[in-house]
């Protein structure tokens, strides 16, 4: 249980990994976009180097297709061209030279998206030297980024891939009130995390309700040690961020004015008493993250078990004018399902975890089905586990059948949304992933049977149209450097 406990302390969202504007070079001589302007400071210094691999067109034919958007097509085809979904339907024609896969009797879904993972930051093996998920030195560490803790050789990535996971959000742990920035990665093997980083995906901010922060700091005799201490901590942090944001806004205004004035006077040019440009406020990496949240550039993903605490946090968010995108580990979301739906807040849940601490004591297996019920709901399944991430389809199957037994009939084409389009929305990436629709990234899983089964296995997994895993042709050597050359790690006869 010790590893689990650590993992349970988690939560952060991916920050907006904005790429530098195309064509802008650093040698520009244009008048001083001051190096410290708010705009330049929000540019991501850790640029994604992820590249798609060119691959032949692929036609998957005759499958039961769950599009991810609530549609099921029996005997359906999915056509992939240039890494994107070209068409989904029946009797599609294969382009010249296309790889045609007969998927009769098999099922096809979008690639699975796990919105809550600690792969890489709490990797396998669980060694001290690789345990980098919780910066437990201050209750507010909005300055840290989970991506800087990722060990790309974590063998957990390839096991998750075998389970159909194509995109995952990796978050810091939940030991802090505000744990740091999360990152969205494509589940591709790479030597650097930048080569996994989902291009253009926003970052998240991991925040945490409840027992973990108050236990971690309370046990050190520091604040917070109570739930009220938690709330005071979030509010002070955002109050400081508001002030910081105002300072930068003032600076930006002063700078703009100065530049305008300078340009005007520059024409006349001989006035000797030119005023010095305004000096920028000191960059504060903690407050910068929070200010970006207030601006809507970073998506808040909040670890929160109890329904009443979710309601408290929605009020805190309203007070400061930011949005909580999703509550994670939302064991009691079923108690506030209507509130979440009316506020447009997602809930990321397990199928059947409960009881490991008091805030998890009221967990029920119908949670996801109940949260899914209201109009406007956004129920998601997450793993928070290097084991669970390998079988999210099975977890969804449990939740689906528990719903059915309770009279909430949920067909597969609806349940698959918990693993695909809903997390895509919560990541702000639903224009690119989470559905089998023309124009979307070709992240696709072919299952050997109905994926809502304990016996289901992913036969083939595509990421951006490239075969990332093929059960019939498994890699001869493990992709992870760590596993390479380990005794007996390789396939036996």
């Amino acid at each position, binding site marked *: *249980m010790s*590893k689990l*406990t650590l993992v349970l302390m988690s939560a952060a969202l991916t920050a907006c990994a904005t790429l530098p504007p195309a064509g802008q070079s650093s040698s520009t001589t244009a008048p001083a976009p001051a190096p410290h302007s708010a705009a330049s400071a929000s540019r991501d210094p850790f640029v994604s180097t992820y590249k798609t691999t060119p691959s032949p067109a692929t036609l998957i034919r005759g499958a039961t297709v769950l599009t991810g958007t*609530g549609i099921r097509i029996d005997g359906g085809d999915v056509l992939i061209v240039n890494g994107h979904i070209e068409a989904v339907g029946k009797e599609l024609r294969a382009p010249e030279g296309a790889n045609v896969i007969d998927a009769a009797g098999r099922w096809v879904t979008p690639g699975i998206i796990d919105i809550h993972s600690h792969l890489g930051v709490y990797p*396998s*093996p*669980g*060694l001290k030297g690789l345990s980098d998920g919780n910066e437990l030195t201050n209750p507010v560490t909005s300055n840290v980024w989970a991506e800087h803790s990722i060990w790309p050789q974590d*063998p*957990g990535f390839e*096991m998750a891939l075998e389970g159909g996971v194509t995109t995952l959000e990796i978050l810091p742990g939940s030991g802090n009130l505000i744990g740091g920035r999360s990152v969205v990665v494509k589940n591709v093997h790479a030597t650097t995390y930048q080569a996994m980083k989902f291009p253009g995906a926003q970052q998240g901010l991991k925040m945490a309700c409840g027992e973990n922060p108050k236990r971690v700091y309370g046990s050190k005799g520091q604040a917070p040690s109570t739930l009220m201490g938690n709330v005071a901590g979030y509010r002070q942090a955002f109050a400081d961020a508001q002030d910081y944001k105002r300072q930068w806004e003032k600076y930006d205004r002063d700078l703009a004015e100065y530049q305008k004035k300078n340009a005007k006077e520059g024409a006349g040019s001989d006035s000797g008493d030119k005023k010095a440009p305004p000096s920028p406020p000191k960059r504060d990496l903690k407050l910068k993250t929070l200010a970006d949240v207030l601006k809507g550039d970073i998506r808040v993903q909040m670890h929160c078990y109890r329904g009443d605490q979710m309601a408290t946090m929605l009020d805190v968010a309203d007070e400061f004018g930011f949005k909580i995108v999703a509550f994670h580990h939302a064991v009691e979301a079923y*108690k506030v*399902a*209507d509130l979440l739906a009316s506020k447009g807040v997602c809930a990321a849940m397990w199928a*059947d*975890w*409960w*009881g*490991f*601490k*008091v805030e998890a*004591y*009221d*967990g*029920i*297996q119908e949670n996801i*089905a*109940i949260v*899914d*019920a*209201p*109009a*406007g*709901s*956004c129920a998601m399944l997450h793993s928070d586990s290097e*084991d669970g991430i*390998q*079988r999210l389809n*099975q977890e969804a*199957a*449990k939740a689906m*059948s*528990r719903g059915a*037994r*309770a*009279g909430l009939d949920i067909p597969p084409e*609806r349940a698959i*949304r918990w693993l695909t*389009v*809903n997390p895509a*929305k919560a990541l702000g990436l639903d224009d690119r992933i989470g559905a089998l629709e023309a124009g979307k990234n070709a992240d696709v899983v072919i299952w050997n049977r109905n994926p809502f089964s*304990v*016996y*289901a*296995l992913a036969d083939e997994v595509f990421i951006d149209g490239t075969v990332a895993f093929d059960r019939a042709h498994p890699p001869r050597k493990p992709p992870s450097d*760590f596993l390479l050359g*380990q*005794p*007996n*790690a390789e396939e036996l006869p």
Partner: protein
Amino acid sequence: MNAMKAQKISFLTVVALAGAISATSVAWAQNSDRNSATADASSDVLIRGAKVYTVSGRGTLDNADVLVHSGKITAVVESGAAGRQVPTGAKVVEAKGRPLTPGVFAGLTHIGIEEISAESSTVDASIDFKSPTWDQKWRPEFDVTLAYNARSTLVPVMRIEGLTWTVLAPGAGDSIIAGQGGAVAFDGMLEPGFRAVLDGSRSLFVKLGSETEKFTGGSRAAAYMLLDQAIGETRASGLVGQDALLHAAGRTALGRYLSGGRVVFEVERATDILDVLAFSERNHIKPVISGGSEGWLVAKELARAKVPVVLNALQDLPSDFDRLSSRLDNAARLQRAGVLIAFSSGENHKAYAVRQLAGNAVAHGLPWDAALAAITANPAEIFGLGAARGRIEKGQAADLVLWDGDPLEVTSAADQVWIDGRAIEMRSRQTELRDRYLRHAKVH
């Protein structure tokens, strides 16, 4: 996020459905007193027309009746035998072809000795006297079953999932000798913990490997040095007194296991498993391997020594350096080599994951029947209960589960569970919470 179609199913409908499942059972589900449950005719039941997985030499009977009298299975017969009469007073349950299995083994757990894991006041699973290693006393006389609370909220949660019994295994405290445990049935009977332990199941638990080398001075090699010392003390050839590892009660307790007693070794690494086999042979111990992530590497040796393995079939990551060679087909490979296997998820509140383990083992090469046996008959056999439990056979305790589908499938659930012939009420604290909030959800 799409709107769900209007759900017009009323709460009453659900109740009616549940009623259909166990209409016959409700009347006699109320009584939770052991005496009345075992002796009187209210525990007589005829389950008619089930697909019966006997997990015995008879295999699977596609259409059979199971008769229960006084808590025991008294007959298992193919259906359709003309003119068979329903015994007077027996409740009849029409299975309508649904699967009937023996009650499922919850694994090695803390069910009933741990309510909320993070709240130490609710956890009795292990002992830790906080003594430094050099002052350590081993306490093999520690018997965790004395803490068993049959009224734990976990018990109803587990049994409505088809789990009818567990082996209480003491957790790691501050010594590699965790103490003694044993099997209990989830009958919910109020009685002293030690009496709840099923006859013949008591076992000693020893923890080895990287997790516990801190209890042996930092090296796993020292585990055997200390074990040899303790055995020496037990056999009266070693130290007695202040510097000894054991108290008098400890010597007596350990001594009971040194002539063919069952000792469960929690161990993962292949070489460590071989060390356990050698140690056990030397000391006349009957070992059970718990964990055994790398067991497939020494499957032949395990089979030859007739040593069973209780494993987590989902263990496939190199979680630590003892488990570098974890594989999803560990169960299949062990079974093929002739090793007796049982499944345990290592979970407490999620002990019901054990069926999922079995299903995944099937997906990775284990024959379906062998997977069912690994959560029913095999664990009963391993823990000395084979004659009494784990099969649907005349004379066995009537621990039975009627399923709504494939018993190893995650989408299946138990429609009705019987323990010692008594139909248990299919409710738990979780179903209460569900029903309180479900009513509202149905309005949408």
